[in-house]
């Protein structure tokens, strides 16, 4: 039997991926350029008995998905820059209370209202540092429509596996371009269920670390009575200011992602075997980068591409290893050098990092990247 094929936009693919992953609750607020996700979810969710709600604002949408997740739903919200800023308070709530949820953010120009219909990659730091306090961060940056579909499924899986908010951040080009997509059969891609408690209700603690760094999460209305707060909490979910408990819990929340970086981090290596110049790219920019690498190879330059698919946790190990072998990195990005900072941190001075930074709402052309590749000596 041949697989189902469609010609879809990135945002539409994101919604379809969420449905494949078992998303049954969407809370959102209209914002360009991500609104199509809400529109598709409003059509499709009620067909399968799921719930769609358009909330009064971005904060309310984030709150609604967290509430629904605690009541047992698999939840999604979609937004873009200004909305991501507004959601940050409650993304932090999701991190400390350890509530699985997926935040799909289409990167447009910024700051503030910026350029609502123009592409950008300037929210990647916001994905890690946007909410206050130390917290875990997982952020996926797809580069095609097919990958957007698959990465949204992976985001749901990671959010359940690590019990934490996960962000999927395509740039506006990926979100709005149309490509062929091949749908997987049901069951073809693994969908992880929530780890539910095995202990009887009277023994249940929502942050019981005897089950490891990711304790099982019960649902409201399933027979388990428990307390959830945004305050620093003890294993039973109640607030505490006890120094050693707060320290241990904060460290565990960050560790559950950091210690599993190898399980979370994904990337693509393109012509890296003998590469002397490595273009590091993500999102739509990587499509220009691939073309540029091909052009450079034709001209006899040993160029390759390291494509970041998981922006957070950042692929430190891989970049550090490359830094010891190559002449230099080229980083094209639609911001004023955000990934560049991370590359310099990982390169530790062993290889120069040359940036191409565009924030004018135009994509980065392969020509620009080829020129920069040639600058690496």
């Amino acid at each position, binding site marked *: 039997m041949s697989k189902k094929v469609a010609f879809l936009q990135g945002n539409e693919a994101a919604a379809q991926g969420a449905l494949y992953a078992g998303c049954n*609750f969407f*809370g959102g607020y209209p914002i360009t350029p991500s609104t199509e996700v809400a529109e598709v979810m409003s*059509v499709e969710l*009620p*067909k399968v*008995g799921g*719930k769609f*709600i358009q*909330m*009064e*604002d971005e*904060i*309310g*949408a984030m*709150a*609604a*998905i*967290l*509430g*629904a*997740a*605690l*009541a*047992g*739903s698999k*939840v999604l919200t979609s937004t873009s820059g200004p909305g991501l800023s507004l959601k940050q*308070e*409650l993304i932090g*709530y999701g991190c400390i209370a350890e509530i699985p949820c997926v935040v799909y953010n289409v990167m447009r120009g910024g700051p503030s209202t910026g350029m609502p219909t123009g592409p950008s990659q300037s929210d990647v730091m916001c994905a890690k540092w946007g909410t206050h306090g130390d917290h875990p961060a997982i952020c996926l940056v797809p580069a095609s429509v097919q990958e957007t579909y698959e990465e949204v499924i992976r985001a749901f899986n990671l959010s359940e596996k690590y019990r934490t908010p996960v962000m999927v951040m395509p740039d506006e080009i990926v979100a709005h371009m149309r490509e062929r997509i091949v749908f997987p059969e049901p069951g073809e891609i693994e969908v992880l269920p929530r780890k539910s408690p095995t202990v009887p*209700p009277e023994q249940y603690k929502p942050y019981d670390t005897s089950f490891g760094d990711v304790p099982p999460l019960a649902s*409201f*209305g399933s*027979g*388990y*009575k*428990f*307390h*959830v*707060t*945004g*305050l620093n909490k003890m294993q039973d979910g*109640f*607030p505490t200011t006890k120094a050693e408990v707060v320290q241990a819990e904060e460290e565990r929340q960050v560790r559950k992602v950091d210690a599993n970086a190898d399980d979370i981090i994904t990337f693509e290596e393109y012509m890296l075997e003998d590469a002397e110049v490595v273009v590091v790219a993500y999102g739509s920019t990587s499509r220009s980068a691939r073309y540029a690498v091909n052009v450079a190879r034709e001209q006899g330059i040993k160029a390759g591409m390291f494509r970041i698919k998981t922006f957070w946790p950042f692929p430190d190990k891989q970049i550090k290893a490359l830094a010891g072998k190559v002449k230099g990195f080229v980083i094209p990005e639609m911001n004023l050098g955000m990934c560049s900072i991370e590359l310099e941190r990982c390169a530790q001075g062993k290889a120069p990092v040359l940036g191409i930074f565009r924030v004018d709402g135009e994509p980065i052309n392969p020509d620009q990247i080829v020129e920069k590749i040639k600058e690496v000596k």
Partner: protein
Amino acid sequence: MAFDYEKYLRPGKLPHIWCPGCGHGIVMKGLIRAMDTLKLDMKNTAIVSGIGCASRLPGYIDCCTLHTAHGRAAAFATGVKMAKPEMNVILCGGDGDGTAIGGNHFIHACRRNIDMTYIIMNNYIYGMTGGQFSPCTPTGHKASTTPYGNPDPGFDIAKLAIGAGATFVARGTAFHANQIDKLIVEAIQHKGFSVVEILDDCPTTYGRRNKYKSVIEMMNRLKEVAVPVKAAEKMTAEQLVGKVLTGVLYKEESKPEYTAEYAKVIERAKAAK
């Protein structure tokens, strides 16, 4: 036999954080009596709050409890109720939490008429942060940020709720303790968004700045200003100056309830599939 509050309270979580003379404990006891009257299944009941003194209430009651972020109780609760419409969802919090930072979520929960009950403990002040003025602090009164008297006009929470579309709105006071559970019972029984405002007192941060010599004086004020709606019907406008109406202020049963309406959306979507 005396009413057994203990069976509804979480063992080991008392004493509560509230100051001596604070009315929040009176409201909590009223809520517990209401839950008892209605024989609510505690496993199937969620209490959702924001941030502030009043928002600490859920932690003491043994059911599904969610202490959210400042002002966000109504939006979190909307998610809980939409995901599991069969659950009883009760919200609680203070006047600043509910009508300032949470004002937008509050009016939209009213507008949707989603079947939840919101208990607002109005003590006219931000108590937890030390007594800054709230949208409910009376004009001219003192707060830590209105040292020369409050220039702001205040909200009438009940009118705000009615105007925004809530279909059951009641008001009581912390002095009239025996009325609190009756109002909450009726509110929970009502199918739609119900608001119960309880006029409360904060002797620590409001009373002492506004020349109330004691908690008793603050309680006596609540006793004096409260006029039951029935009694008010027989009073002149002049007699009602400075008074506050108490009891069930508004009830409307024809407006559709939100989760029931969404169930119809699901039916229509499945039929169109």
